[in-house]
């Protein structure tokens, strides 16, 4: 609890001058995270819960250090399957989204099928994937892909389907073909939807790969947590969860940055005008 002492030490210093102002909004994510862990720690210590039920953060960090080698190896494995599945989902989602958004008939025909497919819990597909490909990396990658491509498809198709009729009229009156309208308007217009959907998709991809690793794999964080759980090594289970949260936040931040970078114009204007 050294940080509490540091905080008090800082507050005894003379008040900061006007030129030095603390940017509370920038600091908020860090402070709130630290706050969560502090509350958690205090809660566990006061209630005296055994660490086989709910380990305190200090115990979890201990486990991370103790099992660093397998944690690191399995984290990389999970990141690998997730990102690979996600990349396939991006390629397929973009392709299918453009295909569906191309014509109203295709849209009408494929949409219900997609919805039905998306309604299937992906964990139910893992056994089938195992029959086809055996256990391990392949079903994890495919589960990550299957779970994350739907939001990409829907968003790209929506971007294409909501072109303003006036824009289409102006271009069609000039003799534009369907391909012209798609290339000049439809695809650029659907890019903000596409990049927006990546944030949802990457988070879902983690769900997919971990589910598959838990059920049918000999490595990855899902498998590590499953075997730790069967040994009642609860701190290691939580260590795995923490690593997943960190990877998830990092990838989400990357997608958010990419979105801002690629389609900054969409954040400065309203799409409908």
């Amino acid at each position, binding site marked *: 609890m050294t940080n509490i002492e540091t905080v008090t030490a800082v507050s005894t210093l003379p008040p900061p001058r006007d030129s030095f102002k603390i940017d509370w909004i920038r600091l908020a994510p860090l402070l709130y995270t630290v706050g969560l862990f502090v509350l958690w720690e205090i809660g566990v210590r006061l209630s005296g819960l055994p660490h086989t039920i709910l380990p305190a953060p200090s115990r979890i960090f201990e486990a991370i250090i103790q099992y660093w080698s397998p944690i690191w190896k399995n984290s990389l494995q999970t990141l690998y399957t997730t990102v690979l599945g996600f990349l396939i989902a991006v390629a397929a989602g973009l392709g299918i989204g453009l295909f569906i958004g191309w014509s109203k008939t295709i849209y009408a025909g494929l949409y219900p099928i997609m919805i039905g497919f998306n309604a299937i819990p992906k964990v139910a597909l893992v056994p089938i994937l195992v029959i086809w490909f055996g256990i391990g990396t392949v079903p994890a990658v495919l589960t990550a892909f299957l779970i994350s491509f739907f939001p990409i498809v829907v968003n790209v198709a929506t971007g294409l389907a909501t072109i*303003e009729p*006036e*824009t289409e*009229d*102006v*271009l*069609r*009156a*000039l*003799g*534009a073909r369907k391909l*012209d309208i798609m290339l*000049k*308007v439809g695809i*650029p*217009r659907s*890019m903000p939807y596409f990049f927006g959907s990546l944030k949802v998709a990457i988070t879902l991809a983690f769900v997919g790969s971990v589910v598959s690793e838990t059920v049918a794999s000999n490595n990855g964080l899902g498998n590590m947590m499953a075997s730790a759980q069967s040994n009642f090594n609860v701190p290691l289970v939580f260590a795995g969860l923490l690593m997943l949260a960190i990877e998830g936040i990092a990838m989400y931040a990357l997608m958010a940055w990419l979105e801002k970078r690629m*389609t900054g*114009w*969409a954040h*400065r*204007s*309203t*799409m409908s*005008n």
Partner: protein
Amino acid sequence: MPLVSIENVDMRYGGPTGTLAVSGLDLKIDRGEFVAVVGPSGCGKSTLMKLTTGLHIPQSGTVIVAGQEVTKPVSIVGMAFQNPTMLPWRTTLENILLPLEIVERHRHRLRSHKAEYVAKAVRLLETVGLKGFGDKFPWQLSGGMQQRANLCRALIHEPELLMLDEPFGALDAFTREELWCVIRDLHASQDVTIVLVTHDLRESVFLADKVVVMSARPGRVISEHVVPFARPRDLDILYQPAFNDMVQRLHGEIATARAAA
């Protein structure tokens, strides 16, 4: 021979039992003429635009533009709507150049003659009072400025026919009058035929050579009025009795047409 000739056209939306938008529509527009179309709302003014540009093909009757019966979109037109629909990911200049990437006659020349086309777009921007705004994105422009850019986009490929669908409807009164003058000067300086669909009777009388009044749905032409005021017209004309008399007469006609519906 007129540039646009619409003869006894019926247009029905949504199948044989759908709404009849226009019925027995007859209209002739001469080359170089400025025609304003007014009428009660829902009288098929926008249908008239779509018929003329070939976006809709009528169920009966003929539409002839530049000596040819319209069976597909005619690329000699430029269009501008109330909603400027600038593409937000392109700069104003790139937006204006968009039609050149589409129109058959220009699209193959665009890459090799880029400088020439850009120079032309810059000149157009200057004509409408947007000098130096080409590098700005549309969302950095005000509504009136976007509408000016919209006019440039409609004119860049030198259309013979410019179709304007209530282009100034969403603007404030002062900006609107400024843009009236922009359109007036464009029409005077370029060899272009303009069809303006509008709700604003003062706008129609100030700008047009001929005001066409349409009936309530199903729309047809009730009357055509030649505007007698000499060109070039100044904004002062808006306050002259003869001008207001004409506006009032048109107003009366449309009120009757509405009541008949």
